[in-house]
């Protein structure tokens, strides 16, 4: 999609702002996806999707981004899947265009639909499984995303259906997906706790960069998750497919919510914020929306600057407070946080009412 057709360009026009870093990351993401499609090719087995997560899926790909990916498999176990994984790893390394994902992380591996769909909560739900499941919903794309029946799409529907199907709901009473919302909140708190754990494990190494990501992109992910959980409440008649609008169906809340939220989940986190900000139903204050996007634009500028990235990567906790680059990032982080607070916690707006009613206690 060209930048000129994007929701974010509409935000620029609506608010009268320039978001050059967001635009550059968007364009870079489109180019990187084209390159990735070339490397991965189209000849994947029917049951396999090559799924990209992280900044590439969010369309926030910068010069410093690595590529978080997984082969999502929805079908029979097959020993050749391992060969496929190794072959793709080799191809991605050989092409020299993508940085490897963190070897200790949840990506760069085979991921199976059964764990994603069936292990929600309980002892079988590991940290990695939670991360993969939620990021599949909140920030993922696949190299065959135009195919209507790609495994990634089936798995996303399967996960959403489980959240909504198992929602405790009394007929005739308002339907709200607390199960899903609780997992969104759980992801955000897990990320924050893991941030502390990584600091303890790794010390100063890249601490300030992790701090910047926690303040911005991780927090944005949480905001997008809240919007997805509020989707059927904020947009009972969704416009996402003009020819066949999704309408929340109180007679079939689980099925209609699955379809409804699946469509919204095709948007990036920034798109979800942009869409919500342009809808009168949410009651979002345009000045706060402007502050939010401007702050995020600064963040992407920081990540795209090799000089600043290198500086932040070397910074110790003790040095940080005296370092101007870090201090600037921190201040803009506060601006981003304040804007999010104003948008999500305003008791007079529909968005604020939902947050206060469901997202805290």
């Amino acid at each position: 999609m060209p930048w000129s057709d994007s929701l974010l360009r509409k935000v620029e026009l609506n608010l009268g702002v320039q978001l050059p870093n967001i635009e550059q990351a968007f364009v870079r993401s489109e180019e990187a996806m084209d390159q990735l499609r070339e490397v991965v090719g189209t000849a994947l087995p029917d049951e396999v999707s090559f799924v990209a997560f992280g900044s590439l899926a969010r369309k926030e790909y910068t010069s410093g981004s690595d590529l978080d990916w997984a082969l999502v498999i929805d079908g029979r176990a097959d020993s050749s899947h391992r060969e496929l994984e190794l072959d793709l790893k080799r191809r991605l390394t050989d092409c020299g265009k993508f940085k490897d994902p963190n070897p200790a992380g949840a990506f760069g591996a085979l991921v199976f639909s059964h764990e994603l769909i069936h292990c929600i909560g309980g002892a079988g739900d590991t940290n990695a499984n939670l991360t993969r499941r939620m990021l599949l919903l909140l920030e993922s794309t696949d190299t065959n995303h135009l195919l209507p029946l790609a495994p990634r799409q089936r798995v996303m529907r399967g996960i959403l259906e489980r959240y909504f199907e198992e929602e405790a709901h009394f007929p005739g009473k308002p339907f709200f997906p607390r199960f899903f919302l609780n997992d969104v909140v759980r992801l955000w708190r897990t990320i924050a706790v893991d941030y502390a754990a990584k600091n303890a494990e790794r010390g100063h190494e890249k601490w300030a960069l992790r701090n910047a990501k926690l303040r911005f992109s991780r927090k944005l992910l949480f905001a997008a998750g809240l919007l997805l959980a509020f989707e059927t409440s904020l947009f009972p008649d969704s416009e996402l497919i003009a020819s066949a609008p999704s309408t929340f169906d109180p007679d079939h809340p689980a099925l209609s919510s699955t379809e409804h939220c699946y469509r919204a989940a095709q948007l990036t986190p920034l798109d979800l914020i942009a869409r919500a900000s342009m809808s009168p139903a949410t009651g979002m204050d345009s000045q706060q929306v402007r502050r939010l996007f401007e702050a995020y634009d600064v963040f992407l500028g920081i990540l795209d600057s090799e000089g600043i990235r290198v500086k932040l990567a070397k910074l110790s906790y003790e040095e940080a407070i005296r370092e101007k680059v870090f201090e600037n990032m921190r201040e803009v982080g506060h601006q981003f946080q304040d804007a999010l607070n104003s948008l999500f916690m305003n008791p007079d707006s529909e968005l604020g009412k939902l947050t206060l009613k469901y997202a805290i206690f």
Partner: protein
Amino acid sequence: MRDIGFSTGALAKSDVRKALRLSCGLGTGAVEYSALRFEELSPLVEFLLKEGPGDYRYSSFHAPSQFKPEDEKAVVELLWKLIDRHAMHIVVHPDVISDHGLWRKFGTRLCVENMDHRKPVGRTADELEEVFEKLPEARLCFDIGHAHEIDRSMSRAYEILKRFRNRIAHIHASEVSDECAHRAFSPASAAAFRKVAGMIPDNVPVILETVTPDEKIGTQMEEAGAIFGQSKDSGHRPVSGR
């Protein structure tokens, strides 16, 4: 309450007389004559022109699932005879249609079936929309097993029903495996089908495509009745001449 019957192809592949004998014993109110293979078409049409479709409240005919474009006109002409003589519903897979103009004359007697994942068209609500734009009067043969095969969550089935339930002529029911084999209901597929069964209008018949051993046919009928609701009065009188 709805009529439930069998596809002759599911009861006895390529042996319509045996299938009708089995169907007759069940006292069903609906039947689908199946000529899924091209070479079955002409003999089965001749059989029906001679014997009639039987005294079922609902009868349909499944056109071949594969034939060459150059045979399309001849296929349509043969099927037209059935509509002309017996006012049967004709089920067709959308991927075999090359010239939509040929099929348009069938009007509301034509039933387009939603497809499994292997076919390039007619699988989702959006893809069906494209077909119905070319065949505006056609009805839908809703294959709930196909809808389940492409999306086990049933949200795509829900979307198809929401948009096209008023077009549905009848249901095809069976569990469809990942390899697209039609088989008997399992607890998983039965539970999935129940989620959307209430959206299917009460008067829409169900045709079972479950390939089932003879001794389990009655059980399949009962299970289908439990999932979809069954007519108490089948009103069936057997086809003469068997």
